[in-house]
Each structure stands twice: as structure tokens, then as C-alpha cells.
């Protein structure tokens, strides 16, 4: 095996500044760095965007969005939720009015059927998968729907290896089969949903045989999954980025939600929908309002009563419209309407699809201030770099996980050098821009959030410690709510049942980046067990499993293109090309290749991916690019 040294990042210990982007950084004192940052933001007050951090605490996200809204007067605040699960939030909100997973981890141990759709949880969410394994050991049957025969699929009753981007045909065919077999939960549909007749008409063309043709999965296997899911007393439908990282990610999510509405597999103990979130606090970041369309507590900006509440709480004017999301902010950089960015703990220069374009857009900014624990590729583009603390080990606060559980994070080590806590830095900047906020500690921020967010009101720090975390909603300091959401849908009284959940009328739309003679291979991306995102964090420890970046091909394709394991090849898409060694993986099928984005300093996979975005959630189609693989000219092979 090739041994390559991955880049290790060392902590930032001092603020860095420079007068122009061609100069190297020089160390500066906090006062100078903050003054420069304040001046840079001040002169771009009407063209500002905030990238908040899905890895920092709820408290930091609350203060960051408040900075954007109160100090800078804009709703342009977002985070890397946009590159992963924004479609889940959008889809779940459209159906149920709330953007969280509906079930709890423990419930999956007590369910009868588990569907893992576009999710390699065994690698990407290993401890969640232990709950799945408990369920399987207890007698539950698991079905894996994934183009790759992943290590998750190894535990499945049946693996449905569909073609990339054919999730909607698969879901619709399952829906049609359930209806035709008489397995739809008519009482639930009648009482708790709307739009069923339109849905029935929508899925009617998707016969099992048509679905087999489009998805590549045998009709018998689709039928078996449909019957198992519909007949189960309790079933859990889980998904990850295989569903959301498409140009129609929100539609994909709606297509899955439809199945739960059709069968009543939601709103009960053990029956629900579980999107597995990718970052420690990507759920919490959205809950705290670090998204352009919601105020803290996931409250809609367009609701006048909500705006009034926040206007009086913050003594400010809240604009009655949505801000730009991360994707739109990048587009606004292109046309010059967004000229300054305050980027906290994010690395979009490497995490965005079509990374060359992202870097070019960041370079075009008038002012970029980056607050991070490392000098990331994004920080290297900045005018001012502010050294921060690591949220999970160096600060007090809370984060919110995939089952909506708010848990305490605590300071265990002292941060290096002059690094300061995020909230402290944001407040210092706010003060220079005319807003003197005083927070004694993280708990004071949390208590302010509790006062404006009914869903969090009952979660005092004391209670969070006592219960080892509490799941939202928690409106009362006296009691705990059920572990699952939307039990209201099962109420007999129509008033208590509330708004019926609408079926999503979504149509199949194949991936934007088509495969053809020039780019014949479908490239999909994902995570490995021991690495994480752009590798800035996970590159810091010596994993015996780590082997660096490869282009993974099935044995048939390797033979077809005449390449051998370990051989470096040129991988090109319509946007860029990289050189990567070949890895042979029998979990892939002819025409399907796999790469990760864990080693961008080695092989920048996102030069290949396409920035085709979901129009609703703004998430790019990381999961489907068209590539070709070519042997390198002999002379350039590096031995």
C-alpha cells in the first residue's frame, strides 16, 4: 500500500492580518485584528454574509445569527447544513411543519422494519448503527437502498442497488405497489394527510417493471421492500446524504416522506423518519436560527407575531423577508452584491462543489474575515484571521444531535496561545460596530435563547445535566415530551390533530451531469469510517485504516480501462481533472466509481463535482458527477 503523509494542521494561536491579498499574513494583536475586521464589515454593511459553524455550540450559533440580524441587519446567515441535510429540513418542514428527525435512536431498537436509504451508517454514523444492530438482533429486518453494496448493506435482509439518482422512481414504485396491494393505511391517510388522490395519480405510471428498468433493481426486490414496510407494525425510514446531495434533494426527501404518510409509519413510538445528520451540531445550528429563513427556535421570519417578539427582545428591526442561503451567497459574490463574509469554522474553499469556482468567488470578495482553529484553505484567502477555541473541548455550551437531543459540551482543556472563545470574539466585534452585548457566560446566552424559543424553554443547564440531554420540543421545565414527534397526527379530535401532512407531488428528474461517451462513469461521493469531511480534524490522528484518497472502481471497470490497483490515473469531469490512484472495490458496479472529500490537499475531489443545486434547499449534487478515467502517459508515472 502506498504511504502518503497527510497534511496536519496546527492550531492558530494569534490573530493574523494583511493589507492586501498578495502579502503574507503577519501576526497582530487582538485590538488591531478586531479593528480591521470591524472596518471591513462596516464598509460592506449592505453586502454582508455570515457563514456560521455547524460544529460550534448552539450558543455560538445563536450569537452569530444575532450578529448578522442585529448588527449587520441581514438574514444572510447560513452554514454547511446547506451542503448536506438542508433538503431534509426543507422536506420535513413542508410535510410536518418541523425540520427534525421524528424518532429517537432507542426506538430503532424496538422497531420491526428498518430502511436505510442512501445511508452508509455503519461507516458514517457508527454508534447510531449500533442501535440499528440491536434492532436487527431483536428480530427487525433491515433493507439497504444504496448504489453501493456498503458495509451497511452487509447487514441487510435485502440490498436494493439502485442507479444513482433514481430514488424517486424507486419510492414511487414502492408507493404504487403499497396502494395496489391494498396495504395503504386508509384511515390514517383520510384523517392525517392531504393530497392523496393526486399522489395516487402521480405514482400510477410507476409500475414495478418500469421501476426495474429505471432503477436497475429487480421488481421482486422492490415489491418485497414495499410489502415489508407497509405490513410492519412499526417501521423506521432512515436516510443520509445519498438522498439529499442531489439537485432535487428536497424532492427526494418528500418522496420518502410520502411512504410514511401512505402507511402511517410516523408519529408513533418506533415508527418514524430519521435523517442522520452529518455534523455534531448541524441540527442545532438550524434550530438556533443560523439559517436564512428561520429565527431561533425554528420560527418563521415571515410570521409577523414572531418578528414582533424578536424585535422587542433584541430591540431591532427584523426584515420581513428571507436572506440568502450559502449557495445563493456564493452566487451573489459572483455578481458583486455580496462583498464581505464573516466565516466561522467553515471551510467552503474545499467543501463546496466545484471548489475552483468557490475559491475564485471568495478571492473576489472585498473583505473576508475567517474565525477558525486552523489556517484552513479558506482562511488562507482571508484579510483577517481570528484564532478561536474548539467548541467541543474548550468551551461551555450545548449541541443538538440527530435525535434532537440537546447535550452539554464542556471545557476540558485550555486553548492555545491567544485563541479566544467564539462568542467572546463575536461580541467584541459587535461592540466595535455599536452593539454592546453582555453575556456573563454560555449559560446566559442559552437562557436568552430559552426566553425566545418555546421548544427550548424547558431545557435549563441543570436539567440537561440531570437527564443526559433533553430532546426538543421541551416547552416545560416540569415534564418531558414523548421521544417521537407528530403524535398529533393520530389524535381523534381534528382540532388536536392540526394541519394534515401533505403528500409531496414530486417527479423524477435524473442527475444533471449526464454520462455519455466522453464521460461514461458515474462518480458518487461519501465518507470513510476513520475520516471526516475535508480532513482538517480527522487528519490529526494516526489511523491504521487510513489509506488516503483513491478513485474506487469495480474490477470490471478497472479491466475495461486497463488500470491496475495503485496505479495513478487521471480522473476528469466537465469541470476539472485530478490525478488519483486506483482502488478496486467489489461493492461497486460497472459504471459506478466512488471517491471521498477527506483529502482535498492530496486529491481535490470537489474539482470534479457539479454545482447543480436543489432549487428549494440549495444543496449541490455531490452524489452524481460524470467522469472518465484515463491512464497517465508513461513518462509521468511517479514511482
Amino acid at each position, binding site marked *: 500500500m502506498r504511504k502518503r503523509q497527510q497534511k496536519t494542521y496546527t492550531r492558530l494561536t494569534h490573530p493574523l492580518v494583511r493589507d492586501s491579498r498578495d502579502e503574507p499574513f503577519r501576526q497582530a494583536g487582538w485590538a488591531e485584528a478586531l479593528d480591521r475586521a470591524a472596518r471591513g464589515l462596516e464598509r460592506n454593511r449592505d453586502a454582508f454574509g455570515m457563514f456560521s459553524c455547524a460544529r460550534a455550540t448552539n450558543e455560538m450559533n445563536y450569537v452569530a445569527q444575532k450578529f448578522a440580524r442585529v448588527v449587520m441587519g441581514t438574514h444572510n446567515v447560513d452554514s454547511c447544513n446547506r451542503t448536506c441535510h438542508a433538503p431534509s429540513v426543507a422536506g420535513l418542514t413542508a410535510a410536518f411543519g418541523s425540520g427534525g428527525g421524528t424518532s429517537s435512536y432507542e426506538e430503532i431498537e424496538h422497531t420491526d422494519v428498518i430502511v436505510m436509504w442512501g445511508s452508509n451508517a455503519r461507516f458514517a454514523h457508527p454508534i447510531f448503527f449500533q442501535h440499528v444492530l440491536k434492532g436487527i438482533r431483536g428480530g427487525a429486518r433491515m433493507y439497504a437502498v444504496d448504489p453501493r453494496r456498503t458495509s451497511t448493506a452487509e447487514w441487510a435482509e435485502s440490498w436494493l442497488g439502485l442507479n444513482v439518482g433514481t430514488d424517486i422512481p424507486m419510492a414511487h414504485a414502492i408507493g404504487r405497489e403499497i396502494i395496489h396491494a391494498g396495504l395503504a393505511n386508509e384511515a390514517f391517510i383520510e384523517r392525517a394527510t392531504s393530497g392523496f388522490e393526486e399522489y395516487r395519480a402521480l405514482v400510477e405510471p410507476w409500475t414495478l417493471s418500469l421501476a426495474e428498468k429505471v432503477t436497475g433493481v429487480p421488481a421482486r426486490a422492490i415489491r418485497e421492500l414495499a410489502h415489508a414496510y407497509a405490513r410492519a407494525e412499526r417501521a423506521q425510514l432512515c436516510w443520509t446524504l445519498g438522498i439529499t446531495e442531489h439537485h432535487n434533494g428536497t424532492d427526494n426527501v418528500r418522496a420518502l416522506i410520502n411512504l410514511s404518510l401512505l402507511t402511517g409509519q410516523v408519529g408513533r413510538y418506533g415508527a418514524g423518519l430519521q435523517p442522520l445528520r452529518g455534523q455534531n451540531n448541524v441540527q442545532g445550528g438550524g434550530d438556533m436560527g443560523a439559517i436564512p429563513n428561520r429565527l431561533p427556535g425554528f420560527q418563521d421570519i415571515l410570521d409577523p407575531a414572531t418578528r414582533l417578539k424578536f424585535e422587542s427582545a433584541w430591540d431591532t428591526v427584523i426584515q420581513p423577508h428571507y436572506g440568502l442561503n450559502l449557495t445563493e451567497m456564493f452566487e451573489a459574490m459572483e455578481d458583486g452584491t455580496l462583498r464581505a463574509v464573516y466565516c466561522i469554522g467553515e471551510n467552503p474553499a474545499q467543501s463546496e462543489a466545484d471548489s475552483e469556482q468557490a475559491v475564485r468567488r471568495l478571492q473576489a470578495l472585498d473583505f473576508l474575515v475567517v474565525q477558525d482553529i486552523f489556517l484552513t484553505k479558506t482562511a488562507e484567502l482571508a484579510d483577517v484571521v481570528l484564532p478561536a477555541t474548539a467548541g467541543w473541548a474548550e468551551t461551555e455550551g450545548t449541541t443538538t444531535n440527530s435525535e434532537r437531543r440537546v447535550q452539554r459540551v*464542556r471545557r476540558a482543556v485550555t486553548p492555545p496561545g491567544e485563541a479566544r472563545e467564539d462568542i467572546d470574539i463575536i461580541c467584541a466585534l459587535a461592540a466595535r460596530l455599536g452593539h454592546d452585548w453582555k453575556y456573563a457566560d454560555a449559560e446566559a446566552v442559552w437562557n436568552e435563547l430559552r426566553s425566545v424559543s418555546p421548544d427550548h424553554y424547558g431545557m435549563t443547564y441543570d436539567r440537561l445535566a440531570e437527564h443526559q440531554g433533553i430532546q426538543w420540543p421541551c416547552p416545560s421545565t416540569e415534564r418531558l415530551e414523548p421521544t417521537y414527534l407528530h403524535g398529533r397526527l393520530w389524535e381523534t379530535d381534528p382540532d388536536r390533530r392540526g394541519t394534515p401532512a401533505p403528500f409531496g407531488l414530486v417527479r423524477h428528474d435524473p442527475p444533471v451531469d449526464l454520462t455519455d461517451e466522453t464521460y461514461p462513469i458515474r462518480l458518487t461521493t461519501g465518507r470513510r469510517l476513520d475520516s471526516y469531511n475535508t480532513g482538517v480534524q*480527522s487528519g490529526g490522528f494516526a489511523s491504521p485504516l487510513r489509506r488516503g484518497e483513491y478513485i474506487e472502481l469495480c474490477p470490471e471497470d478497472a479491466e475495461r480501462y486497463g488500470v491496475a490497483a495503485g496505479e495513478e490515473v487521471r480522473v476528469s469531469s466537465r469541470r476539472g481533472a485530478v490525478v488519483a490512484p486506483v482502488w478496486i472495490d467489489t461493492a461497486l458496479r460497472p459504471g459506478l466509481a466512488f471517491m471521498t472529500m477527506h483529502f482535498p490537499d492530496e486529491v481535490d475531489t470537489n474539482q470534479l463535482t457539479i454545482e447543480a443545486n436543489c432549487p428549494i434547499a440549495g444543496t449541490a449534487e455531490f452524489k452524481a458527477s460524470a467522469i472518465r478515467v484515463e491512464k497517465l502517459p508513461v513518462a509521468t508515472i511517479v514511482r
Partner: protein
Amino acid sequence: MTVTPLGIPRRLLEFAIDGQQARVPEGSTILDACRAAGKDVPTLCEGDTLRPKNACRVCVVEVEGSRTLVPACSRKAEPGMVVRTGGERVRHSRKIVLELLASSVDLSTTPRAAEWIKEYEAKPDRFGPGAARVNEEPRIDNELYARDYGKCILCYKCVDACGDQWQNTFAISVAGRGFDARIAVEHDAPLTDSACVYCGNCVEVCPTGALSFKSEFDMRAAGTWDESRQSETTTVCAYCGVGCSLTLHVQDNEIVKVTSPHDSPVTHGNLCIKGRFGYQHVQNRG
């Protein structure tokens, strides 16, 4: 029909421990009841997140009407039972178990072993210097953990944690039979050539330090490991969205070990490679 019954509420049952009345929920073990009553029963192979293995026999107690001593860790409490935890028979049995273990295994890093040996007046030396030991060097074949089979008491907790009770990776098992039995990966290969995924959940449950994190192993070898100078802080993992509870063991502002609370509803004491070992980035302080 559902295949996984949700269970019914448990009743309380009453019985006697050392002449005192004990009330515990149905399904509790004698050990649960002893701990609830504040009795100090020694245990080695018992794990709070694992099913009882009955391997070490150090927790045995006397139950009236039972011909043999019973292991408290696995025997369920029954109404009307009469249990004695400190009689001569019990003390003698524990003494022999400790003597046999301590004469064949290095218990120097086993928490409380020295205390129990003293309490039960065990004399491991009485078998003489020729008592059989594994006598082999610790195995260090990767940067994350070390295996020292000279400290292994063959309690199987690591096998259960790696196997069907939690991790379901099945990288380790018992190889050999009788006196040759030992814990090994397939073909007794280096860890790096095995199915191991480096979650460290075997290390988490090891009662003797036969399995240890490399950070701890190195610091012990250098004589710098000092638990009295360590703080333990429970926080949340910085990686995926599952939100695992992490307990950071910190000595001199360096994270030296990561565990997870065994009663955490998210982890039940288990972690993956990133949560267990992926902390180094915060202390790459340049």
C-alpha cells in the same frame, strides 16, 4: 404483528442479604441488589454494559439451599432468597480465585486488585516462582492501542464487546483451548491485518489493562501516567451528528484518554474510531 415486544413494567421483589431486607425490581441480579444495599462485592469479568459471562468467579456469594456458591453477577434475585456475602466459604473461594489469577497474570494495572488481595489475605506467591505465566512482550503494532496478554484474565469481555453484544465486528475471539486459550485476532495476526476497526470498545471494557490505549501505555512506560493529576470532563463528540457523549481524561492540559459514560442513552459506553481517537487535532498546538 410486532416482533419486538416492548415489555411490561417490572414488579419489586423482596429477599434478604446478610440478614437485611432488600427490595429490587424483578430481573435484577444479586449483584445489583448488593450494590444497591452498599455491599462491596469484587468483580472482574462483570461489565455493566455486557451480559454476565461467569468467567472469573470472584463475585461468588452464598445462597441458602444452594449446594455451590453462586456468581452474584448473573444469578437473578428471587423472592424470599437468603443471601450471605461475607461468610467463611465465600471469603475462602474469593481468596483462591485471586491467588490463582494473581499468580498467573500481571494484575498491576487492575483497579482494586491489590486491595482485594489484602482484604481476602490471598498469597499468590505460595505457588512459587515457577507458576505458569504467559511471559511475552506487549504487542504494539499500531498507533492507537497496545495488547499485553500477560495481563489478560480471559474474561471474554473484549470478545463480547467486539462481537454480537455491541460492535458486531468480530475481530477478536478465543484461540486455543484449555491452558492454551488466549484472545487473538484471526490467525493471531497483527491488529493491522485484522478486521479491527479501532473503535476501542474492547479497551473500554477490559478490566485489567491488558488492552490499553497507546497514549496510556506509553505514559505508563515513561512513568508519567498519573491518574491523581487527571480530570474527567464529559462533553459531546466533534464529528458526525449522532452526538456521542465523550469523557475526556486530561492530564497537564493534554487529552490522554477518551471514554464514554456507560449509562449514556446515545452510546452505552461505545464509540467509533473518530470519537475515541480523533482528538489530536485540538492539541496540535504548534
